[in-house]
């Protein structure tokens, strides 16, 4: 009866279902295609968008752990993103510590911040938790704006000199977007793997039990505060990592940019629109929203990769009427999803697939009555 807690948390390896191998095969093909992509398309716009997309997948997967599995709708994930971004940036600018070490320090800091925030906010439930999570991120934002001596206030930090990484007998320039493309691609795969492990481990079942009914889970011996904190720590670690990398990719950070409520909302929307509590959901959500947002923000980039010509009516229309309003599209999408497809796009796909399967199954008994 006395099993150690560590033993209970080890993932129980799943028995693969029939279509798992097909899924893995498709996934592998996609990954290989994405890995070759920068060699074929050398335009920085496309590479940059790829890196932003992978970062969004990391953040979406991170939020999924706490929001999707543990059911705690944090709208304050900017706190962890900002913790990662500022740690990495300040270590580089003030202590000359290279970012490939700094991001791990940022990750640790993100987890520490999550433990503090978790202790404060997990005593609250439902809407009160949402409000508390927002205000924690806002306190950090105002704090970073206020304590100018330490944080340079609203001005923020800019990378002044980016070191070169020498490893495996090669030199990687952190000014080259391709370095970020590959780094974020690998980390996005790691984030997906983390979600997969969480979903299929006992830890994940505890999270889901808390999501479904916290009091019932508690009465069955699951310590809600402990497991919610664990979910938040995993989530914060990945989010802080994304923050550190994005700070290095964009090379400039400000409190409003990395601690802003827009960022927290955007992460939640990626998951909601894709499908909450699923592994593919955040991937679909990010794959839909990020290119759309980048396209609306800078339609000339499409011309750069040769999809449309720079003086076409399409580019001119977007520049004249829709630039700076990518959030409008987010807003419309989230309203449509909540009203008509609360399970997200993945939910819609699954429903259609199930209907097709049923139709195929119901077609058979007509030919073979014994089959029913």
């Amino acid at each position: 009866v006395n099993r150690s807690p560590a033993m209970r948390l080890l993932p129980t390896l799943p028995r693969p279902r029939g279509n798992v191998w097909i899924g893995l095969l498709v996934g592998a093909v996609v990954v290989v295609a994405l890995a070759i992509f920068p060699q074929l398309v050398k335009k920085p716009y496309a590479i940059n968008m790829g890196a932003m997309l992978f970062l969004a997948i990391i953040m979406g997967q991170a939020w999924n752990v706490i929001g999707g599995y543990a059911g705690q709708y944090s709208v304050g994930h900017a706190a962890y993103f900002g913790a990662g971004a500022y740690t990495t940036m300040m270590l580089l600018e003030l202590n000359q510590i290279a970012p490939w070490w700094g991001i791990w320090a940022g990750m640790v800091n993100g987890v520490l911040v999550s433990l503090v925030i978790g202790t404060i906010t997990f005593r609250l439930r439902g809407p009160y938790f949402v409000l508390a999570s927002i205000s924690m991120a806002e306190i950090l934002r105002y704090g970073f704006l206020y304590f100018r001596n330490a944080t340079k206030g609203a001005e923020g930090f800019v990378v002044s000199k980016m070191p070169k990484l020498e490893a495996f007998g090669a030199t990687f320039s952190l000014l080259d977007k391709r370095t970020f493309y590959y780094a974020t691609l690998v980390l996005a795969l790691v984030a997906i793997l983390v979600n997969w492990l969480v979903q299929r481990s006992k830890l994940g079942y505890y999270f889901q039990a808390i999501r479904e009914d916290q009091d019932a889970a508690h009465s069955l011996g699951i310590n809600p505060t402990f497991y919610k904190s664990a979910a938040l720590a995993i989530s914060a670690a990945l989010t802080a990592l994304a923050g550190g990398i994005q700070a290095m990719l964009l090379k400039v950070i400000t409190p409003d940019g990395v601690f802003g409520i827009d960022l927290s909302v955007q992460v939640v929307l990626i998951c909601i629109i894709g499908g909450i509590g699923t592994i593919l959901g955040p991937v679909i959500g990010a794959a839909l929203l990020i290119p759309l947002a980048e396209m609306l923000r800078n339609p000339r980039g499409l011309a750069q990769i040769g999809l449309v010509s720079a003086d076409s009516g399409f580019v001119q229309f977007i520049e004249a009427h829709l630039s700076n309003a990518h959030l409008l599209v987010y807003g419309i999408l989230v309203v449509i999803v909540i009203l008509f497809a609360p399970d997200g796009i993945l939910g819609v796909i699954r429903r259609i697939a199930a209907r097709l399967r049923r139709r195929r199954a119901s077609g058979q008994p007509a030919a073979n009555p014994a089959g029913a």
Partner: protein
Amino acid sequence: MAFLQAVLNGILVGGVYALIGIGLTLIFGVMRVINFAHGELLMLGMYVTWILFDGTVIGLPWLHLSPFMAVLVVIPLLFLWGAFLQKVFINRVLNALPQNQILLTIGLGLIMSNAVLLRFTADYRILTGWKAADGSDWASSTFELLGLSLSKVNSISFLIAVAITVALYLFLIKTDTGQAIRATAQDRDAAQLMGINVKRMSVLSFGIGSALAGTAGALTLTTYYAYPYVGSVFNLKAFVIVVLGGMGSIIGATLGGILVGVTESLTGMVDSGLKEIVVFALFLALLLFKPSGLLGKSRM
């Protein structure tokens, strides 16, 4: 004396904050929905007021309607807009997960702020050249009361806010419709069994709530500037006010508004950069030690 002055200034600003809080708490009380688009409704009120003052947008450049008069236009406009939002969107998710309700209102807020951004750009809008009849600058004129110097604009805004609050109290307490709204807030199912049309009460409440937010926007524009994302500033402030007073309690929201106004004003005496931090710290402390708010019942 400086202390008294700061408290008084805080109370004047707090009166307008109370309007924001009362709208949000009314919506929460009746629908049990936290309206994350409340700040955006306030922003719309600001823009309507600015349009009526500036006039060029509607082809009447000579208009220069005073924001205090604009309230009379803002109230019906925002009421209709709020009722529309409730009827078309919010009514459909009343039985959905609270998270989905929150996200729906966030989405509606994004649509409102970005539609305004598209139409009016991100420029800051203020009431440029708003002069009193004798040609003096409205926004900076003051008057003396018992040795304290008070801003004229803030005092008039406060009086308007008080008048509207009192009218709302009377409506909720004295009229049949007001009682029906309060009954719906108390127990939705029981109210329905008593023959109250709860959907209609919801539409009415959301309309009143957004009219109050719009009015607060009109009054805020007298001393503040409007821009498309200004809503998020007031969203957070509205949450603080409502949680301080206790979600769903109208008297609590009135108190919460005044309390936030005074806290901001007093912190501003020390260091205006600390205002928000102190207000949020107060908010968190309250969430932790008395999540039901000063006057609310426990709803953890």
